[in-house]
């Protein structure tokens, strides 16, 4: 592969076709909504197209965000188990989130053009309906 062509699986999951490094702005967004533990972030990433099956990816992403000072974490005492890391957004993280959102808006415009032109040939169903129809075949 020459690096310009992404390997798209035959039946891709949402996470496999999302923009590269999409996890990063997603985490910043979730932490903009409110500070959170790792497990909570894993759960809240699902509607954004990420599986819960790779907590290591989340852990490494959080570490990278912390190293880049976009996120900071503190210990939260627990009376019923081990202390947990609570993550929150920094000012720098808020700025990067805004830049990412702006870039994603531009991507969204391009995708709309693509889908509009494709719809000249085929009318697409929303993903959930397509899946249920396929399952009933």
């Amino acid at each position: 592969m020459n690096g310009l062509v992404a390997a798209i699986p035959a039946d891709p999951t949402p996470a496999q076709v999302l923009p590269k490094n999409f996890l990063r702005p997603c985490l910043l967004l979730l932490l903009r909504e409110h500070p959170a533990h790792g497990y909570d972030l894993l759960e809240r990433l699902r509607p954004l197209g990420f599986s819960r099956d790779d907590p290591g990816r989340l852990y490494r992403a959080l570490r990278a965000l912390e190293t880049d000072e976009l996120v900071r974490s503190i210990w939260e005492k627990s009376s019923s188990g081990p202390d947990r890391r609570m993550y929150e957004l920094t000012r720098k993280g808020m700025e990067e989130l805004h830049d990412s959102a702006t870039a994603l808006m531009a991507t969204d415009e391009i995708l709309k053009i693509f889908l509009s032109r494709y719809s000249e040939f085929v009318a697409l169903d929303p993903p959930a309906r397509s899946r249920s129809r396929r399952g009933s075949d």
Partner: protein
Amino acid sequence: MSMDELEVLRVRDELLQAMYWMHSEGISSAPTAIELSRFLAVPDTILTAYLTRFVEDGLLEGSGGRYVLTDSGTESGKRTFADEMADLTRPTHGECDADCWCHDSPEAAAECLHERVGGSHSG
């Protein structure tokens, strides 16, 4: 196989922190070498040698192919997490004083100088 002791320290901190995080988030309290290698995105063949070493050092207990933090390993994993955060608030090289991190060791001084020359250091 002889190990570079600085590398052992680096891997030890990384591994114990990761295992503490997995434990505290309820993901796994007794991961296998394969699970840890996936979690940290490193080859399990490399990680296994370190796991053996950390069992010998009393930081981990290994049983049935699974690894658990000992009390000492737990304390170390939690402490290094906090220490790393402290690093972020330390002065950078341009703000050097007697307490600057670049005085911690010859390696730290070399790294600081390298970063400064490379332009990535904010000092």
